[in-house]
């Protein structure tokens, strides 16, 4: 089993509703986290984010003045001096498919529809900690790879042009251990000391290219 040492993670919770902030804080506290910060709108959240660089951001969507989508877009600036790759979990009362797609296209890492449940929140955190997705930068998008899986029988348009002239470009997640472990449980040795696994378990990293 893979566990998360929540003591090592700094959370930022952005929600205009004080009750929901308290609920999320209480859940994170129950998970073991002690470094939890709150902001009541996107503007205050961005201020904290810039100053304190949290490890994981949990944000609401509907907030006055500066909502969760605007907040996400403000973070997902490739040229940003603060971490533009930070995992963003959107926790929202909006559950319509169109809204989920809009959040995804703004650069949200995970979407969690309210009402909130401890297991669902834990699973989203587990996912962003263990299985970070590569980022894609195009003229109109900067955010986590929106393709969570390669669909072999996909028949839609190929929007990315790669060196193979528009064929699907396989993108290897940095860390596949979570997926592998779900397929083959009980294979991991005891490593409570938090030392990272041997190098052979890591998928090959893509060749480094000149940074933009």
């Amino acid at each position, binding site marked *: 089993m893979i*566990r998360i040492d929540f003591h090592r993670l700094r959370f930022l919770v952005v929600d205009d509703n004080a009750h929901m902030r308290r609920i999320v804080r209480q859940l994170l506290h129950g*998970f073991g986290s002690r470094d939890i910060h709150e902001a009541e709108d996107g503007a205050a959240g961005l201020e904290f984010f810039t100053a304190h660089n949290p490890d994981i951001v949990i944000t609401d969507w*509907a907030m006055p003045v500066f909502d969760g989508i605007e907040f996400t877009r403000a973070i997902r600036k490739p040229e940003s001096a603060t971490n533009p790759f930070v995992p963003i979990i959107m926790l929202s*009362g909006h559950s*319509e498919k169109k809204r989920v797609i809009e959040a995804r296209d703004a650069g949200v890492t995970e979407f969690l529809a309210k*009402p909130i449940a401890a297991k669902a929140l834990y699973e989203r955190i587990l996912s962003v*900690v263990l299985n970070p997705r590569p980022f894609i930068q195009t003229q109109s998008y900067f955010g986590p*790879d929106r393709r969570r899986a390669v669909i072999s029988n996909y028949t839609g348009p190929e929007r*990315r042009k790669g060196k193979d002239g528009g064929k699907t470009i396989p993108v290897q997640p940095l860390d596949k251990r979570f997926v592998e472990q779900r397929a083959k449980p009980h294979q991991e040795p005891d490593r409570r000391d938090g030392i990272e696994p041997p190098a052979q378990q890591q998928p090959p990293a*893509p060749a480094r290219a000149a940074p933009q």
Partner: protein
Amino acid sequence: MSKLPPAQPEQQRFEDHSVIVPPHNLKTAVVHTAEPGDIAMDVVEQGEAALDRLKGEFGGWMQVECDSLDAARKSLHQRGRSKASFDMLFRAGHDIKGNAATLGFPLAGRLAAGMSRLVYHAPDKTRIPLAVIDRYVEAIRAVVRENRRDANEPTGLEVAERLAAWGEKFLAGELKDAYAEIAADAAPALEMPAKPK
């Protein structure tokens, strides 16, 4: 963890996009154990237990949410059907939609979802009859006032269903062809329990 020096991401450029592999900074928070299972259910249970310790406050919180909703409704009556008033009403309803089930009032959440949907999707919000808004607000307040925590409480369910059905008919008439885009997101109609004769 956040004090670690920033590592450089790896990047592959293609014709019209780049694939960037950010440094996996959070891996130092990962602990491997020999325990069986995928999910550390004890951690989830600790989260649930922590939330349970707040439950004594939930009734009061729900009352505060209802007061915000009522204030928004009053603003609509007193200040007119302005965008600001409808925004206030939508936010209050949307908060209840998201929070009510966690706070133990799922029926209030269902009612608030119906009202929020109506307010959000109506192309001309001034055409929404205030009597319908009043019914929604009163129904939500009644559920909380009478401490109806059962999601299947028959009277509350029937009110929610009737209001939702009215709302869908109204939206279909207002949106015309565009209604098809939102029709699938409507809350599924429930089979109403038979009324005792």
